[in-house]
């Protein structure tokens, strides 16, 4: 499943990378300026590229946005499959079970995604409102220090609440595959109840998974900055490092869901 998810991600990204590559080869494939790209970010190069060949580029970008959205919808779809496999009651790891789960839970998970996205927007909006209330214009505040202070105070609180909701959403997904109720309000309610009853365990587990992700990112960051990718072998190496990171990112996602499922199954007994 892990490899399958990685491959799906790779194929979708490739769908937009191919036209992007075509755009670059057509625009600048014969230009010596091409080598400027090897030294990393080059402002003149990027500006000239976007200005002079921008209309072709925006076609590629629109296509890529479309692919991201499509991938998003598919991700909802196979989330059902992932959860069915993780639930693991019949020790059935078949593709059939995966696709079946995907189909069965798609609509419920879509609604759940919609509701929780709405929650996240409300939380973000609330904190943005609190931030703006403190004032940001030179006529409202004494100095930028007060802006920095309100960021320092509000940002962690916001992140805490956003995290809680992401976490509850995970347990709501688990409840959906377990409870098999007609409406999704019941699983959401149950998820809230479950998380608040086992708050320390849930949060601890979530933070542990976040930390694992941070560790993978750290490794990627160090590795990708440890060499200059300005030749074909080093570009290939960077590609491998990048793909390893994506692979680990998907692993953490599964780890997070799997461990939450495990916790749920232990605590629910």
């Amino acid at each position, binding site marked *: 499943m892990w490899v399958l998810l990685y491959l799906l*991600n790779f194929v979708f990204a490739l769908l937009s990378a191919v036209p992007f590559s075509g755009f670059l080869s057509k625009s600048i494939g014969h230009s010596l*300026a091409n080598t400027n790209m090897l030294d990393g970010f080059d402002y003149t*190069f990027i500006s000239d590229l976007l200005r002079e060949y921008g209309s072709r580029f925006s076609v590629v970008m629109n296509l890529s946005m479309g692919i991201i959205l499509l991938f998003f919808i598919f991700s909802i779809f196979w989330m059902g499959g992932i959860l069915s496999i993780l639930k693991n009651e019949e020790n059935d790891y078949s593709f059939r079970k995966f696709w079946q789960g995907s189909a069965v839970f798609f609509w419920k998970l879509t609604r759940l995604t919609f509701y929780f996205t709405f929650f996240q927007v409300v939380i973000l909006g609330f904190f943005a409102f609190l931030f703006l209330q403190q004032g940001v214009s030179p006529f409202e505040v004494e100095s930028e220090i007060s802006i920095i202070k309100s960021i320092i105070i509000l940002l962690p609180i916001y992140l805490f609440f956003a995290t809680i909701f992401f976490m509850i959403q995970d347990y709501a997904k688990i409840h959906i595959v377990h409870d098999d109720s007609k409406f999704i309000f019941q699983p959401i309610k149950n998820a809230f109840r479950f998380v608040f009853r086992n708050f320390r365990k849930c949060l601890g587990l979530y933070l542990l998974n976040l930390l694992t992700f941070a560790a993978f990112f750290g490794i990627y960051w160090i590795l990708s900055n440890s060499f200059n990718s300005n030749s074909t072998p080093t570009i290939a190496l960077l590609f491998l490092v990048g793909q390893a990171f994506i692979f680990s990112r998907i692993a953490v996602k599964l780890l997070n869901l799997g461990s939450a499922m495990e916790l749920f199954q232990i605590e629910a007994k």
Partner: protein
Amino acid sequence: MKYKLIFLFLLFTCLGFQSSKKAPLSARIANYDIQVKLDVEQKKLIAHTKLIWKNPSADTVSDLQFHLYYNAFKNSESTFFNERGLPALFKTSLQEDCNWSWVEIQNMTDNYGNDLAANMHYIQPDDDNKSDQTVLRVPLPRPVLPNETIEVEFDWIGKIPKTMIRTGYNKDFYFMAQWYPKVGVYEPAGMRYAEKGGWNCHQYHSSGEYYGEFGNYKVAMTVPENYVVGSSGTQPNTPKNNGDQTTTWNFEVDDVIDFAWGASPHFVENKMNWKGIEIRLLTYPEHVHFKERYFSILPQALEFFEENFEKYPYPSLTIIAPPFHGIYTGGMEYPTLITTLNSCLLPTGVRSTEILTVHEFVHQYFQQIVATNEMEEAWMDEGITNFYEGVIMDKIYGEKSSTIDFMGIKTGNAESDRVSYFNMENPAIAPNSLNSWEFPGGSYHTIQYSKSAVWLNTLKRIVGEKTFKEAMKTYYSRWKFKHPSAKDFVDVINEVVAKNHPEEFGEGMDWFFQQVLYGTEICDYAVSSISNNNKITSSGIFDNLDECEKSELVKNEKGEEIFISNVVVQRLGNMTLPMEILVRFEDGKEIIEKWDGMATMTTFSYEGSQKIECAEIDPQHKIFLDKNLLNNSFTSKPNLSGVRKYVNEFMFWMQNAMEGLGMLI
């Protein structure tokens, strides 16, 4: 013996006197003695001015004209607000709380005792807008004769705006720029474009800054006793406490075109000395740690100008770094005083503190010492200043990272000018030669700052660094403490270029200025294709119908195939510049072709055993003005290493974006 001693004593006294009294740097036409009281309760300036004005012409001058800049903020119909619209942030303060500002002259007499106030009236030389009261004409009952001096005294009150553009107060921070009634520039016949003598005294517009006359200033500011004053000039004595909870600060400066100052009870003062020049920095407590950045960059800029022009000629330079609530006053230049901006929100890699310090400092040379008319020819101060800002910043921090160097994002200073110029919706919207208020569609800033810097950069590379440096130095030394026009600038460049490169540039660079300064032409040259075809013998039926000749590969005596190779270059823009084209063959041989750049397309053809590998137009990268640098070269085989790297990164970010959005599920 005695006589000898007395003689020696007199001799040394005379010598001493001679050396301490240097010849004036400027003509000292407009000299001010101002006593001003800052009323922080009423937000007013209550002042008395004595102006000594010298008629610089052979004309008999029958009036004086003053700028009353604060009247730009007096009503919603001023030319300033007509052009800009009432800023949204100030609407309530202006329209509901009636916080309009103004300056009013209460009386005025000349040194003959004539009352000048009776007939003074507002005029609108630029747009006839009767609601605009930013220029005051004062008819003189007794005119000023050629080269004669007149003394005028007047009381006046200024209502300070809440930090409007460049000046005003917010909380207890005050910055006083364009704060006093300031006499215009009388241009005698022959100066700049003047055919006959007359006042050059424009209204205050939304775009464009000032034009001032040289003179000496003595200013005494009385402020609340806990306030610290930062100002143009130096202090002849320590501030005097008046015993009524006020303190009077005195400042003096000679040979300048303007005078500005600021005051606040929160200013923290830091000083350094650079080769005898006192640098005084006034910041708010939260910005004190920026001190190192100012004191590191400023000496480097001073050094650059001493090396390339002349040593900074004043004894002091003051930096005022406004607090966050005073940011609208930041980033401006006044004689011997600059305002910058800094923010604890910005990381060190965003070099706005350094950029503004360098930029405003360069204005001490181009705007203050070479005192051009910013209302009519703003490129002469903003463009030249932006250009040298780029030169200095790029030299210190590298040309790819002198503006931003943060988290892998790097931008250079000069390249940023090029990018902002070409990223305009229409880079051909206006030439540099317009009056500041005539620029359409908000194009003033980019055309005057960025475009000028880009073509100056191109000019430098075309004529060569040495010639350019000599030309700019000549321009500076010929026009320091004077008021040159664009024509005077062009004349100096032409003179030096023609002297140094008579064969190459003949009479000079008029052909260049015509396009970049007075024109709106866009430059874009491209190598559009390369072809390498085998040379073959001719084929077909010629004289004899029965004989059909077949084509064959032509080979040289070594048996190598012969190629007909073509490089096609195109002029895609309407600017014409002479061009060089570098053609490189597969064996590494290089040919430099010269092209006058006039035709829309030209082909260079070669015949030989080597194929062309690549061709590049402008191989020395002189033409910074070229709009698209990516089409300046062409390789016969695609060159995809860079493409691969970007595709790789694009793919990685796509994958992350897809996974990132997946967090919402």
